[in-house]
């Protein structure tokens, strides 16, 4: 018996049992599509976090204060610390060190008030270090810093909140009831999935300390190394200088914390990895449910199919011909369902889901397709495999 004849039987079998074929295809489709989609969402979330952190640059070092150990007194991070770190003689690998003070601030304009996510005071070098570009107007200058002028550069979110539909540059806003002039609007960076990087406003450090926070502790010093390669050298130089200034002896725990963007990246990636694993297990469950659905349909129709096998054997079909037909039927349904599932997955990932732009993981496509195809193949051909071994009369009498 030729292969084309077996294939023709299989095609006819699929066409003759339309409901069964449709349900099987649907079960596999849902399984495959949900695996692809859910893993893509997880991957999209972590990609967004990585991108937002990578946007800061790989040559950036963040120093933040750390609570003192019992029995020691912690020295705050000060502007003087930042100045010392920027000394080219002591720290040749350091390009710039920007002191950062942060305040909680509510800004208002023309009766609209808005609580800004991050209100920072820093120096102009900070913009370069954090890859912040200006979209409209200008950044503030070293001169503004020196004279503690009440100027502010606002992020895209703040701009749309306070100035819907109008140009904020040159306008005046009240920050905690102190008038500031908006000199520029930053280019949008987008959401990292966890935090809106555009919900920010940045003013000269001197102004912020003068008007809002006082001259106490800084919240951060952001250091930029001369290049990504000198980051390790810069880290060592920064640690030496700060240990000296804060009188941290050998073996003592420092009262500050040094974090490179790479470490930050690792920490954040670990969080989103957990998220991805969670989604992947949900996906695996839906694949399983799809598989059970397929199995169910196959088993429900198997009595009829076993009788059919009995008829075929009674008129002289040999075992390989029967197995071939049922295997091909299952293969066609699985591949068809799998292909539709992949298509549905690809279409689904073009939409933004819960604020996350899904990014397809190629291996998940392969995995979902392979697993569902195997489920379809196994449960499609297993009953046939058993029935083909029966004597014709046993298969015909099957109930």
């Amino acid at each position, binding site marked *: 018996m030729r292969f084309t004849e077996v294939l023709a039987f299989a095609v006819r079998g699929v066409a*003759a049992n339309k409901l069964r074929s449709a349900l099987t295809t649907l079960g596999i489709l849902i399984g495959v599509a949900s695996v692809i989609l859910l893993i893509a969402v997880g991957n999209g979330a972590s990609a967004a976090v990585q991108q937002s952190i990578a946007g800061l640059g790989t040559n950036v070092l963040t120093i933040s204060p750390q609570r003192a150990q019992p029995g020691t007194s912690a020295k705050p991070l000060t502007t003087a610390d930042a100045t010392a770190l920027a000394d080219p003689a002591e720290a040749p690998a350091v390009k710039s060190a920007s002191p950062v003070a942060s305040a909680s601030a509510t800004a208002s304009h023309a009766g609209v008030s808005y609580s800004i996510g991050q209100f920072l005071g820093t120096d102009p070098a900070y913009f370069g270090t954090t890859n912040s570009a200006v979209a409209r107007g200008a950044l503030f200058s070293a001169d503004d810093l020196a004279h503690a002028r009440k100027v502010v550069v606002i992020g895209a979110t703040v701009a749309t909140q306070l100035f819907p539909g109008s140009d904020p540059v040159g306008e005046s806003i009240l920050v905690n009831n102190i008038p500031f002039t908006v000199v520029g609007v930053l280019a949008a960076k987008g959401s990292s999935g966890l935090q809106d990087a555009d919900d920010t406003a940045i003013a000269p450090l001197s102004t912020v300390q003068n008007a809002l926070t006082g001259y106490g502790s800084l919240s951060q010093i952001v250091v930029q190394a001369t290049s990504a390669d000198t980051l390790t050298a810069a880290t060592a130089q920064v640690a030496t200088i700060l240990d000296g200034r804060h009188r941290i002896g050998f073996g003592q725990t420092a009262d500050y914390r040094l974090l490179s963007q790479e470490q930050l990246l690792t920490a954040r990636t670990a969080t989103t990895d957990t998220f991805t694993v969670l989604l992947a297990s949900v996906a695996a469950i839906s694949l399983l449910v799809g598989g059970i659905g397929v199995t169910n349909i196959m088993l429900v129709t198997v009595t009829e199919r076993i009788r*059919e096998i009995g*008829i*075929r*054997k*009674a*008129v*002289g079909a*040999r075992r390989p011909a029967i197995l071939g037909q049922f295997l091909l039927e299952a293969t066609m349904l699985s591949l068809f369902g799998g292909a539709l599932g992949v298509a549905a997955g690809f279409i689904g990932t073009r939409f933004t889901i819960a604020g996350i732009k899904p990014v397809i993981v190629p291996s998940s496509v392969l995995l979902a397709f392979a697993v569902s195809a195997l489920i379809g193949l196994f449960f499609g051909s297993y009953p046939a495999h058993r029935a083909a071994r029966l*004597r014709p009369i046993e298969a015909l009498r099957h109930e």
Partner: protein
Amino acid sequence: MTAPVIEVRALRKTYGSGDTAVHALRGLDLTVRRGEYLAIMGASGSGKSTLLNVLGCLDVPTSGHYLLDGIDTADFGEAQLSLMRNRKIGFVFQSFNLIPRTSALANVELPLVYAGIRRAERRARANAALRLVGLADRAHHRPNELSGGQQQRVAIARALVTGPAIVLADEPTGNLDTRSSQDVMAILDGLHAGGRTVVLITHEDDVAAHANRVVRVVDGQIAQEVRA
């Protein structure tokens, strides 16, 4: 006297085991010669269908011998049994056993496909078989679009399409009215007239009257031979 095509010796068939064992055939002997037209009668549960299923190579006996054309079927493997069912024997079931949602023509073609016959020839032979049973105009109907009598005639067309030497029919008229029964019996008479060996099971005397020999099965054995 022509040579025996079917020779059954001390045939036993037991379903199940232990206390619940059913002895459907208890050492049955039967010889059918080439070209014979045999009717098997007997009470319900006496073992007629069991016997015919063994003769049709659809089932295997528990013990005893079944010689088909002088060869013991116990020596046959799965491939050879398939070949016998395909080429040598045409089987007609009481319950038709057509493949659902498949046209009459495709059902009749089925044995020819497994015989490896090419499409064009298959078509021609299947159509000829349908014409023989008077269903040429129903070739593209599905079983659920046919009456019981028509379904049985399709089943007979399927049984005779490979040109088998033996046609076995298990109560071929059991589910049919008088008119349809006559149609079916006319076809079987024609097959016998064409030289084939025909064995059928029936409960009806007027059906058995078509045969030239009648045997009665009682409790899994041939109890009585009635020459018609």
